[in-house]
């Protein structure tokens, strides 16, 4: 029918990415810039003493603190606590987010009734709700898991929804022509076609979820990396505090790397740049 074919988006096959030989050059430039910044920083604090070391410790002091952290059992306990909460919150967010996203994306009725509220909630600053969660769920893991979930679930829902809505009509028609119906249509066509979008949402959700965890520990926690960071800052151990921040940056980036690797593994047919719009 012409209605359906009018909305059927035809994907243009793009040539695969050309090997980027020149990118190594940029990597070296970046390393150089970072080295220069560290050198200036070190000089300003330790040698010229322009800034008191108690406010801004020099990179060498931070490096020492960082080394100490890595052999500190207390740090690893906090690390396990935080990542455990993030993992639990994320798993729930993925299950709920993908299910809700597929349902809302696939059903026009839900799309018109539920989706506006999802966008509304998505744009609400959920961080403001953090104190409520701590009041309601206590200082333990529960409030942190809830925060991780709340922050992570919306990008997952909305991306999955976007993916389910944009599944090409001709793919669905192909499914129907070859006898795929009902639930099978979901499994064989909708879910795989949506998968790259979901993974992109999960990537964003993971980053936000980690922020939620640290924030929750900041506002009222009994353990975890955020708690440790807050403690160090209150003790004016700035070298420890900055080392903690670096740890968090590393964790966040490793998580993103992990998920994008996963995405390339699970959905190698999909070009990353095509889903940019949905995130």
């Amino acid at each position: 029918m012409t209605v359906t074919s009018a909305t059927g988006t035809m994907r243009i096959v793009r040539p695969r990415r050309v090997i980027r030989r020149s990118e190594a050059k940029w990597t070296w430039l970046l390393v150089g810039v970072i080295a220069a910044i560290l050198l200036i920083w070190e000089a300003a604090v330790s040698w010229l003493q322009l800034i008191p070391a108690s406010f801004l410790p020099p990179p060498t002091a931070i490096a020492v603190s960082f080394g100490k952290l890595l052999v500190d059992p207390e740090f690893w306990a906090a690390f396990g606590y935080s990542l455990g909460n993030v993992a639990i919150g994320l798993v729930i967010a993925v299950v709920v987010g993908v299910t809700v996203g597929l349902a809302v994306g696939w059903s026009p009725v839900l799309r018109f009734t539920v989706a506006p509220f999802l966008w509304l909630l998505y744009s609400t600053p959920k961080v403001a709700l953090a104190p409520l969660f701590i009041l309601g769920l206590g200082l333990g893991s529960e409030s942190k898991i809830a925060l991780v979930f709340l922050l992570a679930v919306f990008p997952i829902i909305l991306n999955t929804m976007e993916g389910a809505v944009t599944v090409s009509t001709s793919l669905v028609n192909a499914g129907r022509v070859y006898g795929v119906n009902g639930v099978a249509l979901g499994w064989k066509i909708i879910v795989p076609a949506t998968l790259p979008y979901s993974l992109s949402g999960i990537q964003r959700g993971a980053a936000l979820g980690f922020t939620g965890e640290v924030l929750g520990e900041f506002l009222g926690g009994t353990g975890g990396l955020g708690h440790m960071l807050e403690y160090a800052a209150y003790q004016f151990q700035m070298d420890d505090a900055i080392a903690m921040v670096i740890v968090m940056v590393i964790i966040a980036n490793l998580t993103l790397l992990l998920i994008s690797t996963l995405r390339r593994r699970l959905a190698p047919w999909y070009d990353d740049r095509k889903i940019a719009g949905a995130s």
Partner: protein
Amino acid sequence: MTTTSIERNEAGAPLISVRDLSVSYDVARTGKRLTAIEGVDLDVHEGEFITVLGPSGCGKTTFMNVVAGLVKPTTGTVLVGGSPVTGPGPDRAVVFQDYALLPWRTVFDNVKFGLEMQKELKGAGWRERVQEAIELVGLAGFEQSYPRELSGGMQQRVGLARAIVAEPRILLMDEPLGAVDALTREVMRDEIEKLMAATGKTVLFITHSIEEAILLGDRIVVFKSHPGAIKEIIETGLERPRSERSIQHDPRFLELRDHLWDALQGEATAAAVSK
């Protein structure tokens, strides 16, 4: 006229019988009711190759989708093998203009998709059938490739293999070569002609290319637009096997081409004006 006429009995019952078919729908944006096709009558016999020719937007794809069971008729009936079409079925396969391959599946698995929902075909020997279909369309060696690694013409070969693997009685092709580059298109026209002549399938082939319609069709169904309806039906009467080269200078081909040019010229102008 919703009752099927029995006059054709002496020639054997048609495989596809379309009577007074109309499809219209509401356009949400304008609130108007749009008639895509109106009053279409057509009988197609077993083994016939029908090309459906018309300008863009004349409803020829809608017509094909009704036969495929993807679109419900507003009025009228479509019978396939004597029973009314209520949805897609294993007796009809579709080749889509934009290929509609599953990008997450290899060529082999895409072709397998053509028969995996049919329980009786999933028994022993299905691998051989898939392999055979792949070889028939000339894709041997590409079984483990993904669609994105193939050119448009090769992707459509996969679409073709997927359609024929379950051996349907009817093949519905919706401008299958419309998105393929010109050179490949000419090669594939000849191949489709040979393939269909060899398998003896009944084909409904949508196109907006006059040459394609003549080269492939036993009969050409010319559509007009606004609303979409059949303008005329022409027997090509050209000998088979045909090829792009062999018919180029055939006087019958030239005559048909001129005739169709005139018929479509008016249509295309009308379509352009009403937009």
